[in-house]
């Protein structure tokens, strides 16, 4: 009888703890628009079972707050506007997050595992004296996460016994939260005084009209086999027919064919589109780490021994300079 009572109270207590969980998602944005990976991070945060708040820090982010308040699953939007948040410098954002944490006592703090999230969250974690967990692909429970190690060649399940769990979320492993249907209240949070130890000077972004690489449904990627930057035009033409984003292997970036923000791989971007077409890419471990979770992989390569064929659903052993234009032509019909 006594034991039964204990068990009930224990279940009750666990339930209470679960309800007491609260997660802060640090929103990534450019002062105009929310970066899509934030929506994937919100989905991950919702899986923890507690209340989800989003922190929007920037110079002028009324529009972003408006967008994020409507996102399903978000309970509260915390807003911090200050000139010192120009360029989203981690030195300034960290003290803001620490102040916010002090006020609200979140059990979890997360962000998307983008250049922004990877730059910021470890700094926050160290200030909280907790070990962060990077680039998680699955949440098993509020303290147990799965992530990849060794360029995606092993899956590691980690239990985090820290009082505050700080983690970044692999965008392609969680659906984007719906951008309608939510009605979060927004609240201003005070900004601590600027640290002034860093300064943002400028940005040069690669401009194009194609879908964004990490969220595109179709990706066409080129490697060293393209032989020059000009030849990438073949891929752009094919991509246009498929409404695809264009990616590249490290070899293509190092050879200067395309800018580095197009790189797919362990050290570049991780993509998981419905269709990934690898053209003139051998398929080194480093590259596979960035694309092997794609639903369908197509390889076009003239070397039948290329490792890419071991992961490709459909392989075509042929000269890319002949077959890529053919494919573009075939899709125009």
């Amino acid at each position, binding site marked *: 009888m006594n034991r039964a009572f204990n068990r009930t109270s224990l279940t009750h207590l666990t339930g209470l703890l679960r309800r007491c969980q609260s997660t802060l998602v640090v929103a990534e944005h450019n002062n105009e628009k929310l970066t899509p990976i934030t929506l994937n991070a919100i989905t991950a945060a919702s899986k923890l079972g507690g209340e989800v708040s989003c922190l929007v820090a920037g110079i002028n982010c009324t529009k972003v707050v408006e967008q994020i308040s409507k996102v399903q699953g978000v309970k509260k939007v915390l807003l911090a506007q200050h000139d010192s948040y120009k360029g989203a410098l981690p030195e300034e954002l960290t003290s803001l997050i620490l102040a916010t944490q002090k006020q609200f006592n979140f059990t979890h703090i997360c962000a998307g595992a983008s250049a922004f999230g990877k730059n910021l969250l470890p700094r926050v974690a160290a200030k909280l004296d907790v070990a962060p967990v990077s680039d998680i692909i699955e949440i098993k429970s509020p303290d147990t996460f799965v992530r990849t190690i060794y360029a*995606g060649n092993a899956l590691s399940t980690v239990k985090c016994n820290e009082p505050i769990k700080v983690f970044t979320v692999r965008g392609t492993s969680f659906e984007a939260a719906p951008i309608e249907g939510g009605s979060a209240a927004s609240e201003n949070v005070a900004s601590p005084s600027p640290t002034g130890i860093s300064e943002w000077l400028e940005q040069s972004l690669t401009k194009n009209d194609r879908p964004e690489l990490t969220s595109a449904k179709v990706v066409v990627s080129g490697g060293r086999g393209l032989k020059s930057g000009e030849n990438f035009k073949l891929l752009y033409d094919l991509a246009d027919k498929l409404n695809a984003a264009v990616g590249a292997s490290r070899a293509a970036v190092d050879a200067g064919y395309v800018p580095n923000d197009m790189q797919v791989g362990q050290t570049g971007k991780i993509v998981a589109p419905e269709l990934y077409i690898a053209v003139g890419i051998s398929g080194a471990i480093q590259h596979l780490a960035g694309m092997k979770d794609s639903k369908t992989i197509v390889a076009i390569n003239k070397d039948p021994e290329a490792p890419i064929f071991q992961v490709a659903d459909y392989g075509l052993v042929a000269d890319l300079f002949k077959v890529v234009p053919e494919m573009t032509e075939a899709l125009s019909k």
Partner: protein
Amino acid sequence: MSGRVLVGVKRVIDYAVKIRVKPDNTGVVTDGVKHSMNPFCEIAVEEAVKLKEKKLIKEVVAVSCGPQQAQETIRTALAMGADRGIHVEVSGKDYETLGPLQVSKILAALAKKEDAQLIILGKQAIDDDCNQTGQMTAALLDWPQGTFASEVSLEGDKVKVVREIDGGLETIKINTPAVVTADLRLNTPRYATLPNIMKAKKKKIANMKPAELGVDLTSRLEVLKVEEPPQRQAGVKVETVDDLVSKLKEAGRI
């Protein structure tokens, strides 16, 4: 700036090795497997040595945390041009749970002890793929950080860093002392020549224990298991472009 640079180097399984997961799912097989310096750390060492060659700094100190074999990695850094090494010895159980939080505490303590002006690290280790240590070291020291650097220039008591971000590049200017983490395109690391490898044998490597630096190695992260990722089904080879396009249409991909 004419101070001292601390470079963190990590010994990892060579990037070209196809790793194997242990049958008992506790980790990956490391015994008898080729190890070398983490590629991003090589880039960090190269950058530090270049700064010294430009006479912008006076000394490069290479640091590695780990068991005895970490000394080989420090030797490599010395052969590339680092002046001296510090081996922070961590072995056994402590080494198994050694993570970025512990390493950053060690680096922060060393930075103070050695009065470093700059810490250069790789942006991530290719084994744990964490991408955390540099950011955490900067936080513990309250120094600014220039992560994923593809260009570093010293300007008086500031560092201008061009960073690789998702949409392209961005430039920041940070105060020194600072922490910089190297991206792939920062430079091309040199090969250590035989004479330099011989010279490196004469350079000093100091041995330290984390306790001497006042660092507690307790970890609150527990690895429950390590598994193989799901294997992909073997695909098919198609003969023609038409064949490929019709297969993709059938599968509903285009």
